[in-house]
């Protein structure tokens, strides 16, 4: 993962619950996703065609309290599988925030993003500088960048690959 990426926006609402809007709980529990193709379920309770419409590199812009409810993280695997390059939220639930970073999905908290970005806009995001450029309307949004060690975890593709690298380097 590079620190800069560009993608087309899909907009969603507030309080997206991991078990209700992001991935239906029943599907998760039935083990129907054993093939690990979580991607085909992502956001389907809100937009049944979302997994088919989305293309690699697309960005999800969501409202407040993103990923609320339980700490289930199949939806994040699914977003990674669909090639979502990052999720930009007005605010993020603690579990969703931590799970996203630990699974290598860039997550950005940026208050006011929903007012400045519309569905279909193209954004250029720089994780290190904390800047979002809206290439469609020319606007710029700022956010507080993550500390370097978390960017390094994201760059490694998540916590597990990061630790594997550390082990290989003799640091663990």
């Amino acid at each position, binding site marked *: 993962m590079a620190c800069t990426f560009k993608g087309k926006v899909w907009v969603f609402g507030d309080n997206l619950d991991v*078990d209700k809007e992001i991935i239906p709980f029943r599907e998760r529990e039935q*083990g129907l996703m054993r093939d690990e193709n979580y991607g085909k379920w992502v956001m389907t309770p809100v937009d049944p065609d979302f997994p088919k419409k989305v293309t690699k590199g697309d960005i999800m812009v969501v409202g407040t*309290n993103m990923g609320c*409810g339980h*700490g289930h993280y199949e939806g994040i695997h699914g977003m990674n599988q669909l090639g979502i390059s990052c999720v930009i939220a007005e605010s993020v639930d*603690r579990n969703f925030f931590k799970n996203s970073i630990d*699974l290598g999905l860039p997550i950005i908290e940026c208050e006011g993003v929903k007012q400045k970005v519309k569905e279909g806009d193209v954004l250029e995001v720089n994780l290190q500088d904390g800047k979002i450029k809206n290439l469609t309307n020319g606007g710029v949004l700022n956010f507080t960048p993550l500390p370097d060690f978390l960017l390094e975890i994201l760059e490694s593709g998540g916590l597990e690959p990061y*630790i*594997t690298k550390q082990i290989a380097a003799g640091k663990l």
Partner: protein
Amino acid sequence: MGKTIVEKIMAKAAGKECVSPGEYLKFGIKDTFIQVGSDVGPRTIEAFEKLGWDRLWDPTKIIIAPEHCGSYSRTRDKVTNRESHRLNSEWARKMGVPEENILELGRIGNCHHLAIEKAWALPGGVYLHSDTHCPTVGGVGCFGVNLSAAETSFLRTGWMWFRVPKSIKFNVTGKLQDGVMGRDVLEYILSQIGPSGALYQVMEFTGPVMEKMSMDGRLSMCCLSVFTGAKLGIVNPDQKIINWFKARTKVHFEPQVSDPDAVYAKTYEYDGSKIEPQVVIPPNRHTVKNIKDVEGTQITTAFIGSCASGRDEDMRMAARILKGRKVNSKVMFNITPGSSQAMARVDKEGVISTLLDAGCFICAPGCGMCPGFYTPLAKNEVCIASSTTNSPGRMGEESAQVYLGSPATVAASAIEGKITDPRKYL
């Protein structure tokens, strides 16, 4: 400048003088136990194999407990629960986990109940687990947070990263009415601040109501604190909490409490005397009503259990309401004790036989119906439960509806076959 209980615990764990909200920390944790449940174990083993990791950070700190779905014969990921516990146990032995850390059925319960019973979560300590409801242990002044996707990494390394949250103080004054329980206080606060009202922050509960509240009530409130978006809920531990742990462990622990001049993002004041029994209405977790607005709703199933209830006080309350009465002929009432120890304790008081006489179904200690593992709800059933949440399909079929209320409300409703105010039975 003063510090909150959570800032003090995090600073101590990180080996720092003090920490401030917004700060990111990465530190090794020496004195925590971590349970690996049968539901996540096989995935952990698979991950270790796939990643080529060959050892645990400290096998003596790992507990293997078939808790979430221990005795149920469910098959998940093509592995039955029994098989998954056997795989977990064998793997743990191979990795050097001591025999006394590998628990069998009959000696277990729901993971967070177990953490309190066994004093793995201590006042002033850090408690990690791969389950959402780790903050339950905030009820005893312990910093409990969910590892979720980071569990495997933690098992290998023993370190984790955290962001220091801001704290919000919830001061609950007055005195709760009989039949209004800790859970009602939390749901009432949720109704006031909404599902993101404490987003990424700590809910610190204080005031005369909290001082009087039992440990069981505090644990229940902290368990459910996550539904306001909170990172965790916590209560400053008092002498009765400290005594509970002193009687159970020889391990040294240092309880922390907030300084009088600690800094809070906000302070809310509520009059506990005015709080009515609260009911959460499906399908959203955050639609909360006073009981009078939903009284009379017909139910087919009632459930007390999970990390949100099933403690001594909850079972006693159910027995108090059901004594000399019967569960409605059309209702199945599943009561799942939180742990074998809790079940044994209340059994000595006659609670279990009262519940059996009333026609309750007493389920094996653990998580019970909450994640839909035991007696899952059939199509179109209507349930009132004192468990954690109500997302469609959570407790069985997606068409089933789950209302959430206190154990008192659940017990009263089970008698009448419809949602009922428990105060009339007390």
